[in-house]
């Protein structure tokens, strides 16, 4: 393939990748009652409808709350696991890595089904947020682990030993040596865990209790029966929120988030 042809081909694929997202964003500014293209006119009409729709507003609050809880729990568990993996795992290193990445490698729908049966079998049920939060923590844990362990790649255990020989206790060693090293990985991992939790669908769908719809679930339910551009306004706000988190962390905080 010649160079210009290849470039053109790639541009077409990039357009294909962006098309459905761009279409949703454009549709959200439609001033008409239906999703017509090109839009009959442009307005913020559907954003006003969306912001006054208590069902969607409650769903956003639920999503943000669960994402925040997930981020904290996953952040703590994932960071601890990554520290173990890097400096203590020894022969178990490969086993630990595979176990930590397992939630990412297993099909999400199967994990969701498995958790649904399990919370019922042990009597927890889905009356509380417990099942859903566990699911979210599981699904975000690999990203926490990848980010924190990547930030420790340059870690040399002899630094910690040097500090120990100079009289530093375990906690001081963690605070003065380990923490500054892993801080970017922890923050990046947490932000990414937040986004994943905010967007995850299947786990929430199967493990939600009554009246605990997250934003993606509410949107999915809405789309099965409605065709107004309100859904596009909801989607656009969700896209802007996740993109904002990524842009802020990568451009402003200068973090490099590992997604794989």
């Amino acid at each position: 393939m010649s160079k210009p042809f290849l470039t053109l081909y790639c541009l077409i694929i990039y357009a294909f990748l962006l098309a459905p997202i761009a279409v949703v964003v454009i549709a959200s500014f439609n001033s008409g009652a239906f999703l017509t293209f090109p839009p009959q006119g442009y307005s913020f009409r559907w954003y006003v409808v969306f912001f006054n729709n208590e069902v969607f507003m409650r769903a956003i609050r639920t999503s943000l709350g669960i994402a925040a809880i997930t981020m904290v729990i996953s952040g703590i568990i994932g960071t601890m696991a990554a520290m173990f993996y890097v400096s203590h795992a020894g022969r178990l290193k490969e086993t630990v890595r595979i176990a930590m990445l397992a939630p990412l490698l297993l099909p999400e729908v199967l994990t969701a089904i498995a958790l649904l049966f399990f919370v019922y079998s042990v009597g927890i049920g889905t009356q509380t947020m417990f099942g859903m939060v566990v699911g979210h923590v599981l699904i975000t844990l690999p990203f926490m682990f990848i980010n924190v362990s990547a930030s420790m790649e340059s870690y040399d255990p002899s630094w910690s030993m040097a500090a120990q020989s100079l009289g530093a206790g375990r906690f001081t060693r963690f605070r003065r040596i380990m923490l500054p090293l892993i801080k970017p990985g922890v923050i990046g991992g947490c932000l990414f865990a937040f986004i994943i939790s905010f967007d995850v669908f299947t786990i929430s769908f199967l493990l939600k209790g009554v009246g605990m719809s997250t934003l993606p679930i509410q949107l999915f339910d809405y789309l099965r029966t409605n065709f107004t551009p309100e859904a596009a306004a909801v989607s656009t706000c969700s896209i802007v929120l996740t993109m904002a988190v990524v842009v802020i962390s990568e451009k402003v905080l200068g973090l490099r988030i590992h997604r794989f």
Partner: protein
Amino acid sequence: MNAAPAKKGLGPLLLIAPAAVLIGVFLVLPYLNIVVMSFRMPGQGTPYAPGFTFGNYGKFFADSFYIMQVVNTLWIGFLTTFLCLVLGYPVAWQLARGNSAFRALGYALVLSPLLVGIVIRSYGWTILLGNNGIINRTLSSWGVIDGPLPLMYNALGIIIALVHVFLPFMILPIMSAIQGIDPSLELAARSLGASKLTAFRRITLPLSLPGMQAGCILVFVLSLSAYVTPSLIGGLRVKTMAVTVVDALIDTFQWPFGSAMALMLSVTGAVVVIIFGRLTVMKWKA
């Protein structure tokens, strides 16, 4: 004097304990529980009843409807994987080897769809593919078609949307495989008189096989287990196995039968992946 080895106490184990408990109790046990569930008795008004049976598997094999659905789901998975491979390879090559200024932008463009929720991406496709969607409207306003093309509520629509959703998962592993190939190998081939095409066919392509293999397995497994996209694009008319399973669990509470279906799909998928892995490794060595 030897450097004192880190004290082997319970301390380090405490670091991994929460993750180990989480994965052991809430991932390993629940997966084993699916197998148990698939042998339970179907319940009346409850998800399942006491006692065990092979009946759920009997029901699955007795009805060709379910077998056909597995076949259809596998077929959709094959086509999605094949299209992702063919469409994605040139992009992966460009991202790995192209020296244009587009590279960083291209990388961002490939990754950014992954940050948008799956419901939203599938919703975008319903706007594009629907009978009154953008594609049909545009084509009919140009006078190319008389009636709307059937792009949604069929396998074609599902495949188009799945290719979109999973393309990045094909591009990224191939890209890193190509990045790992020493460019001087290709230069050496060229200096020995191989044409550009021959150098690519004999050097780059075979060396990028592991990336292609990883991408194919990833996309295939993701396509088989996709729920949101087939459900929104296929509607009630075309259902993949994952959609049937989830509906059986949520709408009709047939947990034991749903588990049997989920396991049959998983086993079939795993067999295909293993055969594919074997075949591609043999080809790679040959």
